[in-house]
């Protein structure tokens, strides 16, 4: 495929992904609406329909056969739903959610023509879905509606009108005058005003306006509110509200509609409901639908493009590179300032100093601006989790609800992408291992429905995500047994471990507390992988668990990986950067506190011990003797700590981490390199890898100790 084609496809995929997310969001709202009282907001159905409609056009355009077929069938189903020809049952909703999963499957596979198992299956299921029309017995004859108005309603509008009538709502006709030039805005405004009172079923041009610059519209509003309330809200100098009176008794035969509704042929493009941007439709002589079939989604698409710009994250990386180069220039400027000062050119020095300060301020603005653009709300990943909870709960026959708070918390786009898998694992584990089945919950007096609370918030330069379940909690005894079986700890060690340390054993590779593996979360190979993945993002994971009460997993993640504040340290002639987010404390090294345990140097202080790693030896940096004074930088990954012994501390700096090239992929212990402000290169240490390498990685209780990281 050509490069241009690849690019176009990437844009197609990203657009499609957004549409699938919109679909998913609206399905969830529909489900919640149903759960919360049975009322379904027609707007959610409409928006779901619009997404699928656009997906259909898009996938057709890009020749994605599977997506196109699926969208086609789904569009039919959603059209039937919004027209009341199909009832939104559990089975239908389930089918819709499955479709979202199939969309994801298609989107995440690289080859557009590859066969997807799920596609044919869902197509078959959609095909087999029996029409189960919601019966409507609304009688429009009981309202005094002008025939001319009824004649121009679309099938959808008729359906909505019938539903409103069936619910016993009042009908109002709001006549408004707008200036033609501001029509779109004014129409949106009045629709927004009317929204709290009910549903605007249609709007049509009415009568003759007073001048050619004006247009007069009739809005048909269905509402449960009495006339005075509607008048108070909507009537004004340019608008009047009239209630459509109910007739005492039908004057004609009780034919529901002035014209029969022919069943629409399957597959015909249905008219999406008008959005706020579409012009009012002109009544057609024959009373069929007026606007061209694709007008509304086209306008919708244009609109979304004009408001947001989709940017490849790597372009932002390139911009960040430029910031890095500017930072180097700034370093040169300060050096120049110092030179001028030492040469006695005080006037020049002061001017340079001012200049470099202004430069620095703008640079910071630029840097934070770019970082801000990279930020996306966690809702992006949380929404997918809601689906997982739904599906996993069903698979395991457990009733679980997910309560999300802080979904608006923002974090770097690249981190969000990488969070999906670990969070999925955590949630699945919680449902599979944590939440008890309904009978057991009842027996111990817990509510039948299990709860997983997902809570996110920003804390300084970090984002904290807590996943808490009200399940049975972790069994530390069985964790200990497993760890002994695996040979990870000795039996006598097991006795000495605190509960917190015992719980941390769950992060050991290959450890599972479950005797038989399940299809959902497997054999517990998950938690160590979760931990590794979180560590790769520069984050850490912590676990608390109380028997019977539940388990809480806390992820602490840096806001961004694009730019990282690091402590610079020197060892021999090598300069290294350690991300501040993984440093727990820094101390001068006291040789007297070092003890040898199993040929490993361990620092013992205040009743705790810390394994030491001398970077000079590990990296074979220089043969010259170590300086008299050295420092211990205590780094952590998850709950494991390690003391890195370094020669000198060189202060903090914001750095951009660049990955090492392919020839250096086999080198362990570094996450990359960074050019410093003085043009030197610092290798960025990967604390997670170093701790892993140190092996045992002794865990320590964390107490009230001084932290250097904010």
């Amino acid at each position, binding site marked *: 495929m050509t490069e241009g084609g690849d690019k176009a496809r990437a844009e197609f995929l990203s657009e499609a992904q957004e549409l699938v997310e919109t679909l998913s969001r609206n399905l969830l709202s529909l489900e919640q609406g149903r759960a919360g009282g049975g009322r379904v907001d027609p707007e959610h159905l409409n928006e779901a329909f619009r997404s699928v409609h656009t997906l259909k056009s898009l996938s057709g355009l890009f020749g994605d056969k599977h997506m196109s077929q699926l969208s086609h069938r789904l569009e039919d189903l959603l059209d039937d739903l919004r027209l009341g020809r199909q009832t939104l049952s559990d089975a239908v909703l389930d089918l819709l959610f499955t479709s979202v999963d199939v969309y994801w499957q298609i989107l995440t596979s690289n080859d557009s023509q590859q066969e997807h198992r799920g596609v044919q299956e869902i197509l078959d299921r959609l095909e087999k879905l029996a029409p189960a029309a919601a019966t409507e017995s609304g009688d429009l004859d009981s309202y005094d509606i002008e025939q001319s108005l009824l004649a121009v309603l679309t099938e959808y509008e008729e359906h909505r009108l019938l539903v409103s009538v069936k619910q016993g709502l009042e009908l109002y006709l709001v006549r408004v005058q707008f200036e033609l030039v501001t029509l779109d805005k004014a129409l949106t405004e009045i629709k927004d005003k009317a929204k709290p009172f009910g549903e605007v079923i249609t709007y049509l041009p009415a009568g003759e306006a007073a001048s050619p610059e004006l247009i007069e519209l009739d809005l048909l509003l269905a509402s449960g509110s009495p006339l005075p309330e509607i008048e108070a809200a909507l009537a004004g100098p340019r608008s009047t509200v009239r209630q459509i009176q109910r007739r005492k008794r039908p004057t004609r035969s009780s034919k529901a509609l002035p014209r029969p509704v022919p069943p629409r042929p399957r597959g015909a493009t249905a008219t999406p409901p008008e959005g706020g941007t579409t012009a009012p439709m002109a009544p057609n002589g024959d009373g069929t639908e007026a606007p061209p079939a694709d007008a509304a989604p086209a306008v919708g698409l244009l609109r979304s493009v004009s408001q947001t710009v989709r940017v490849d994250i790597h372009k932002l990386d390139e911009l960040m590179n430029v910031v890095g180069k500017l930072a*180097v220039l700034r370093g040169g400027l300060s050096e120049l300032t110092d030179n001028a000062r030492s040469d006695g050119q005080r006037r020049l020095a002061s001017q340079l100093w001012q200049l470099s300060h202004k430069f620095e301020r703008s640079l910071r603005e630029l840097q934070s601006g770019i970082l801000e653009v990279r930020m996306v709300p966690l809702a992006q990943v949380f929404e997918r989790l809601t689906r997982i909870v739904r599906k996993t709960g069903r698979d395991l026959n457990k009733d679980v609800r997910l309560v999300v708070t802080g979904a608006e918390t923002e974090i770097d786009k690249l981190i969000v992408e990488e969070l999906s898998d670990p969070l999925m694992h955590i949630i699945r584990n919680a449902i599979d291992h944590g939440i008890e089945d309904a009978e057991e919950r009842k027996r111990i007096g817990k509510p039948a429905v299990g709860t997983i609370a997902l809570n996110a918030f920003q804390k300084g330069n970090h984002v904290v995500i807590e996943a808490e379940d009200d399940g049975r909690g972790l069994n530390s005894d069985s964790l200990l047994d497993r760890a002994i079986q695996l040979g990870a700890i000795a039996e006598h060690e097991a006795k000495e471990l605190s509960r917190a340390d015992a719980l941390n054993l769950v992060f050991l590779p290959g450890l599972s507390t479950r005797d038989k593996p399940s299809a959902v979360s497997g054999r517990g190979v998950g938690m160590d992988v979760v931990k590794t993945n979180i560590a790769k993002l520069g984050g850490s994971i912590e676990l608390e668990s109380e028997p019977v009460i539940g388990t809480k997993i806390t992820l602490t993640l840096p806001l961004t990986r694009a730019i990282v504040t690091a402590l610079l340290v020197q060892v021999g002639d090598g300069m290294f950067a350690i991300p501040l987010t993984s440093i727990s404390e820094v101390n001068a090294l006291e040789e007297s506190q070092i003890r040898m345990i199993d040929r490993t140097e361990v620092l013992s202080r205040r009743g705790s011990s810390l394994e030491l790693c001398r970077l000079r030896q*590990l990296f074979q940096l220089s043969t010259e003797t170590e300086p008299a004074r050295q420092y211990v930088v205590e780094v952590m990954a998850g709950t494991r700590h390690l003391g890195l012994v370094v020669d000198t501390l060189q202060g903090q700096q914001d750095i951009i981490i660049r990955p090492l090239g*392919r020839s*250096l992929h086999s080198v362990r212990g570094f996450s990359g*390199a960074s050019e410093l402000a003085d043009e030197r290169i610092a290798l960025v240490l990967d604390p997670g890898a170093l701790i892993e390498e140190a092996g045992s990685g002794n865990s320590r209780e964390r107490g009230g100790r001084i932290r250097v990281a904010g």
Partner: protein
Amino acid sequence: MSLAEGIEASTAVPARLSSADEPVREILTFAVGGEAYGVPLTQVLEILGVRSITRVPRSPPDVVGVCTVRGELVTVIDTRRRLEPGAPAAQNSGRILLTSTADGEKVGLLVDEVLGVQRFSQTQIEPTAGVLVGDVSSHIESIARKGTQVTVLVNLASLTS
């Protein structure tokens, strides 16, 4: 900038056909450990002067280290050691030929000296397939001869990976 600026290779004359319509290859020749080697001129992005190269602990012996070129991180390969395993480690001197791998990574080849640009016709180039064996042979593509002068043409894709 305190470091020697490189010669922009892009200013060199592009490859063109000779009068006899015979394809001609423009080869940038360089010296490593007393031998003459060559790479297609079009594959060299830039020739850089010596600059400070940061050694990466625990790296393979044929990697000198990393340096930055206008903010980009470049791995510098010890060309001699890659062609002649066991040769003494390169000194931080000579020139760096900046190239780009298929996946866009910038790689520098540290060489002793840049000799110049030579034009070879196809008849002057002999493939070495099957003639040489061993790890190193994969780095060597063909041999170009002009009179008694022999230039070993290296395979950049293999040399830089």
